[in-house]
C-alpha cells in the first residue's frame, strides 16, 4: 500500500526536472527530451489516479498522450533536421529569425 500522494510527488519532481531542462539546456534535442520527460511525468499521475479510482479513463488518456507525443516528436525532429540543413548549426540561441 503506497499513498497516491507519493506517486504524485514523484511525478511533480520529474516534471520540474523536465522544466529545468527546457529552461537551462541549449541543445534543442535535449529540450525535446525534457518535454518528453514532462509528458511522462503527467502520464504517471494519470495512471496513479486511474489506479486509485479503478477506472480505465486515465489509462486511455495516457494512451492518447503517448500517440500525441509520437506525432510531436516526428514533426519536431523533421523541423530540427531542416533547421540544421539551412543553418548548419542547431544551437537554440542562434534560432532568432523566422526567415531561413
Amino acid at each position, binding site marked *: 500500500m503506497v499513498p497516491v500522494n507519493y*506517486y504524485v510527488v514523484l511525478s*511533480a519532481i520529474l516534471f*520540474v526536472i523536465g522544466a529545468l531542462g527546457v529552461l537551462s539546456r541549449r541543445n534543442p534535442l535535449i529540450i525535446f527530451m525534457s518535454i*518528453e520527460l514532462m509528458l511522462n511525468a503527467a502520464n504517471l499521475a494519470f495512471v496513479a489516479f486511474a489506479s486509485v479510482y479503478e477506472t480505465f479513463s486515465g489509462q*486511455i488518456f495516457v494512451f492518447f498522450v*503517448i500517440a500525441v507525443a509520437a506525432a510531436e516528436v516526428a514533426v519536431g525532429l523533421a523541423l530540427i533536421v531542416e533547421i540544421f540543413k539551412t543553418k548548419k548549426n542547431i544551437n537554440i540561441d542562434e534560432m532568432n529569425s523566422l526567415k531561413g
Partner: protein
Amino acid sequence: MSSELIVFLVLSLVAIATALGMLFSQNAVYSALFLVLNFVTVAIFYLLLGAPFIAMAQITVYAGAIMVLFLFVIMLLGAESLAPTNTLPWQKPLARLLSVILAVEAIYILLTKANSNMMVTSPDASLNTMESLREMAVTLFSSFLLPFEVTSILLLVAMMGAIILTRQEREAK
C-alpha cells in the same frame, strides 16, 4: 515499511537519478540513454499500478520508437555536444531558482493540503489477464471512439508533415 513501499522508493530513486543524468549529461547520446532508462522505470511503475497495457505501450513506443528516432537524429546531425554560448548568462541561475521554487511549492501543497487517505492497492493477478485488457478495449472503442479516430488523423497529419518538410528541401536543390 511494507515491501511495496521499498520497491516504490528504490524505483523512484532510480527514476529521479536517471532524469538528473539526462539533464546534466554533456553528451546528448548519454542523455538519450538515461531517458530510455527513465522510461523503463516509469513502465515498471505502471505495472505496479496495475496498468500492464500502458506499461508495454510505454516500452515499445517511448523507449523503443521515439528514443531510437532521437538517437538517429543526434547521430545524423552530429549534435552530441554543442559549444556553450553566453548569449543569456543570467538565464541558467534564474532557471534553477525558479525550478527549485516550483518543486518546493508543488511538494509542499501535495504533502500538506492533499488528501492522503487514498492508497494505491497492489495489483492482483486478475489484472494481468486478458479480461482486463478486453475491458479496457471495450472502453476505448465505445466511450472514447471519437478521440481515437481524431488521434489517427493526427498521426496521419504528422506523418505527412514530416514527409513534406524533408521533401521541399530536396526539390530546392
